[in-house]
Structure formats: structure tokens, C-alpha cells
């Protein structure tokens, strides 16, 4: 996948930090601590690429997505999109850019307004951005419905009249209506049944090919992420621990956390499963309010040694675009 490197960068994230204050007290509200949801991460996404972002719940992967979309204003850092730093634009300046940055949410049951019809849901962005009116408005709605595989007569239905898979198609249609160049897919298939998941993955795949859309695909399911992504980034407790091309990450993972994560994904084949070794990690993910010193993974790591306790490992390029943040590999 050497060609990925030469591709044009669409989004560049530099030293992104997102801290949420922990407030205590009813009247005299005081900031008592900070949740370091995203702590100093940098990566870039190329045009037409799918970057998979994996990690366990609470590791900050959704926060990264929301920071890119400027649904959260980051504490510090830069997000460069089309030559502009999104973090330093005013809301007014951001609005035209928001057309290009869209999102598909996890739960199609909660992210769609129950009082909007399908047409309203898809059409609202068109109205807000003043893109289409009258016949053109309806034409675009019909067109988008058709693209995602819904029939045009469904335009007047409400979300509860759709099944889970259809609802997610509607969520995708809403994201598509403004012809975005970048979509954050935040766990788009986790709420769906297995047989429906494959339909949605295939749809996302087709859309990317047809419209040259770039995806940030956030998920906790490594087998799905591997299927859809060109490169995969692994997050743990607000930090990136490993970034590599999908096949390389899955075949030769370097970071102990990635190795454990891969071993934890069961393979639907009893013969293969009988021969696989299982890495059982100790304990649970620590609180991001007081992350461990040094490498944040060291209390659970089965390969931890002295420097891990005190020194924070840097994300370094170890071999041709394979980045890892681990003292085992630092020179």
C-alpha cells in the first residue's frame, strides 16, 4: 500500500488535546480535575482513504471524531482541513466547511428526530445551507434515498416506521445530502444485526468508490475495521498506541495492547479457535481522570519493564509507515 503515502492529505491532526473539566460543588462550582479524553494525538487522513480508529469504550475515539467535526472545541491542537485550521475558526467561518464534514452516528434509534419525516431529516441540511429549494430540493431527497437503497415513497415515513438497517441507511442519506468529502462513521453498525451489518458495510464501501469520500471509521470491532479500512489507528486511554496499514497491523501487531486486542477477537471457526492462544489482560481500563504514569498501558501490560513506569513513549515510525508508541521498539 505504498501508494497511500503519496496521496494527498485531506485532514491533518496535530497534538490534539481534549480535556473535560470535572466540576464539583453546587453553588461555588470549582474545577476539581480534568478528564483527559484525548491527550496529544497526531495523525493524518489521506483523500479517499478510510482510516479505522479502534479502541475500547471510553478511550476517546468518539471524542476525536467530534473534535474533527468541531462538535467539541478542542482544548488545544490543530486540525487542518483544506488548508484551514478548524480549531481557530469562528462558528460563522466554520459553517461553509461543515458541508464537507459529515457524521453517521452509532444509534439510528436515537440520532434521528422522531418527529421528522425521512424527507425532513435528509432535507434539513439542504435548507440550512441554502442549497436547494422547490423541485430541486425534492429531487435531491429522492436521489439520496435512491443512493442508499431506500425507495422514494418512504420519504414521508417517520423513523419508527423503518427497521434498524433502514434507519441506518436514512442516517447515511442525511450525511450524504450535502455531498461531503469527509464522513466520520461513529460505530455505524454496532447497533445492527449481523446479517444487516454486512449490507451497511457494503453500502459504505460503494459510496466511497462512487463519490470518493474519505472516512474516519470508528469502531471497537477489529474484524470489521480491518475489512473496511486502509489504515488502522489503535487508541488506548486518550492516546494513539499504534498506526499501520490494515494488513500489517493485523498480521504483525507490535504494541502489546494491539496484540491483546487482536487475540481477543474470536474467529468464527472452531478449528482455528482451538489452536489460538488467548491473551487475557489483567484488570480494567484505568480512569482517564488520573491516568497511570509513563505508558498509560503499563498496569495491564504483560511485557512492561522499567522505563514504562515513568517515561511516556512517543509514537514513532518503526518501519515504513508503521507507527507504534512502545518502549519495546524505541531506539
Amino acid at each position, binding site marked *: 500500500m505504498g501508494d497511500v503515502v503519496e496521496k494527498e492529505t485531506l485532514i491533518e491532526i496535530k497534538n490534539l488535546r481534549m480535556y473535560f473539566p470535572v466540576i464539583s460543588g453546587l453553588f461555588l462550582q470549582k474545577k476539581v480535575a480534568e478528564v483527559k479524553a484525548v491527550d496529544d494525538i497526531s495523525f493524518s487522513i489521506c483523500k479517499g482513504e478510510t482510516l479505522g480508529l479502534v479502541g*475500547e*469504550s471510553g478511550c476517546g475515539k468518539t471524542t476525536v471524531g467530534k473534535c474533527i467535526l468541531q462538535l467539541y472545541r478542542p482544548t488545544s491542537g490543530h486540525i487542518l482541513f483544506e488548508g484551514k485550521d478548524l480549531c481557530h475558526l469562528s462558528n460563522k467561518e466554520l459553517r461553509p466547511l461543515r458541508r464537507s464534514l459529515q457524521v453517521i452516528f452509532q444509534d439510528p434509534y436515537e440520532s434521528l428526530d422522531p418527529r421528522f419525516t425521512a424527507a425532513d431529516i435528509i432535507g434539513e441540511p439542504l435548507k440550512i445551507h441554502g442549497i436547494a429549494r422547490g423541485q430541486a430540493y425534492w429531487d435531491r431527497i429522492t436521489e439520496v434515498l435512491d443512493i442508499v437503497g431506500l425507495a422514494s415513497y418512504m420519504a414521508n415515513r417517520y423513523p419508527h416506521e423503518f*427497521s434498524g*438497517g433502514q434507519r441506518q441507511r436514512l442516517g447515511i442519506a442525511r450525511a450524504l445530502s450535502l455531498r461531503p468529502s469527509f464522513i466520520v462513521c461513529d460505530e455505524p453498525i454496532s447497533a445492527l*444485526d*449481523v*446479517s*444487516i*451489518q*454486512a*449490507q451497511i*458495510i*457494503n453500502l459504505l*464501501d460503494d459510496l466511497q468508490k462512487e463519490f470518493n469520500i474519505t472516512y474516519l471509521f470508528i469502531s*471497537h470491532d*477489529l*474484524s*470489521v475495521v*480491518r*475489512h473496511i479500512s486502509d489504515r488502522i489507528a489503535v487508541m488506548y486511554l486518550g492516546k494513539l498506541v499504534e498506526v499501520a496499514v*490494515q*494488513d500489517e497491523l*493485523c498480521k504483525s501487531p507490535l504494541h502489546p495492547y494491539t496484540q*491483546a*486486542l*487482536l*487475540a*481477543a*477477537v*474470536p*474467529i*468464527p*471457526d*472452531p*478449528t*482455528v*479457535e482451538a489452536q489460538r492462544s*488467548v*491473551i*487475557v*489482560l489483567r*484488570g*480494567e*481500563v484505568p480512569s482517564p481522570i488520573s491516568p497511570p504514569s509513563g505508558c498509560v498501558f503499563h498496569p495491564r501490560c504483560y511485557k512492561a519493564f522499567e522505563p514504562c513506569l515513568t517515561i511516556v513513549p512517543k509514537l514513532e515510525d518503526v518501519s515504513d509507515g508503521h507507527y507504534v508508541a512502545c518502549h519495546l521498539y524505541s531506539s
Partner: protein
Amino acid sequence: MSALLEVKNLSTYFYTQDGVVKAVENVSYEVARGESIALVGESGCGKTVSALSILRLIPEPQGKIVSGQIMFDGADLLKLSKKAIRQIRGAKISMVFQESMTSLNPVLTIGSQITEMLELHRRMKRRDAFEEAIRLLTLVGIPQAKHCAKDYPHHLSGGMRQRVMIAMAISCEPQLIIADEPTTAVDVTIQTQLLEMIRDITNKLGTALILITHNLGIVARYAQRVYVMYASRIVEHGPSQAIYHDPRHPYTVGLLASVPRLDEPVKTRLISIEGQPPDLIFPLLGCSFYPRCSHATPKCEEGKQEMVEIAPGHYVSCWRACNG
């Protein structure tokens, strides 16, 4: 192998305003002593309802077990009095639920919820029961169990709560544990911890396990026999080797093909099963899968195919698979 639990032709219906939902229809399965089986299927296919029926936990009057037999240790659970079934719940058959937050009592401490079971079923004194509760919590890998026993469910993380559920499930050393999606709400690394622990404990105690899940990978790792459910019926069952390597029902085939696998080269397209599962209020006359089946024949539309043994221990209900 003598069967510990034998579910025979179980049907459970729910009576709603819109009509009768046939959640479980003519389902049969059996579990031998110490065996682990899995019920696989998508949401709404009736796998949970069939398990709840075993413990007679179906909410009445809207739900009702309309027919069938559930033989456990020689007795039909469906014929027992309410008092007698209470002696079995928790003591001989216990259950691990999916949502640990909603199935633990939020106003009782963890310790008191476990001691309650021990006092009731094992007739222990309060103090002994508390000691035993701490031993159980340590066994399921909870650090500082003494401290944890005084905590309330909301103090614990999802993974910890699920451990508490497992501690409760094994507290009376039951003969059968029903684990209903025990790890759906937790992360993958915690999922491995929990499932490995369940396997170790069931092996040690010789407990049989019914694992209900939609995750085909987990089934491959932890179950010896698999029952595949679709639209309130079992469509195929057999040893997991047979189901995974030689699936015969088109639904099983489709299900296995639709999940991306880590150990295979990346495919350009996933094979998906088109369409939606049918409405359980208006069941189809023929095979419930035929509208989505790529091999459907006019014969499939006419009537249901009986379960046929096509290989030793491998049963399938598909007209095409049974008739070549």
C-alpha cells in the same frame, strides 16, 4: 450422555394489541451434564425468550408458554408449582443476564444481593453467607472483594458488575448456567476475561452452560454444540465443527459468510443476506427464511420442513438440504 435439560416442542407466545407474537415456536433442544451449547441468532429471533421460558420468567399474562415440555433432572419444569420452581431458580439453574445495570438491584449492596441467595438456597447463616460472598467475589476476580461487597451496583464498572452477576450465578453451584449475551455490553478485552472465567468455572464445577449470543466467534470458541435460531424456530443444529465447516441451512451459510474474519485475506465485498427478518405476528406458511433465501423453491413456500438428521448429530430444517 444423559440429558440434563430437555426442551421439547416449546412454544411461547406474547399477546399484544397488534396480535399474537409467536416468539418461540416448536423449539426443542437438549443439554447434557457438563456440556456447553450455544443458541445463536439475531435479535428478536426468540433465543432469550426460549431461555426465559426454562425458568418460567415469561411475564404473564401478556406472555404465555402455550405448549411443550421442559424436562430438567426428570421433572417437567412447566408442571411445577410456583414454590417448586423457586427452589430451582438460582439453585439448580441460574442465569447471567446481559444488562448488569438493570438486573442487579440498585438499592442493595453487592454483598447483600449475594448473601440473600446463599441464605435462601443454601440455608447459611448471615455471617457465613457474607464470608462465602467474599470468597465468590474473589473467585471471579474482583480485587478487594471485602470492600466491593459493601458497594452498590452503580459504584462498579460494567465489567465488574458482570463479574458480580457471574458470582451470583455460581453461588449455589448450579447444574446449569444460562448466560444470555453475557458480554455484549462490555469491551473485547473484558469479554475475553469473563468468558475464559466462565469456562474455567463451569469446567471445574462440571456445570452445563447455555450460551446465548449473536457473536459467531464466541460460539466457535466456547460451545461444543450450536443451535441456530431464525424467526422463532431452530433452523439447524449440530456439533460446532459441523455447523461451521459444513453449514447446510442457507441462513447459517449466509450468517457465516457475512462476518469478516481476521484470519482471512480481506474480501472486497461481504456477502450479505438481503431483506429483513419476517414479522412474527404473521408467520409465513412455509419456511420463514424463503423470502430472503437465494435457493428458495416453490416447495419452500408451501409448508414447513421437518428437522432431518443429515449427518450424525447434525440436524437441519431445509427442504433443499434434505432432498439434495
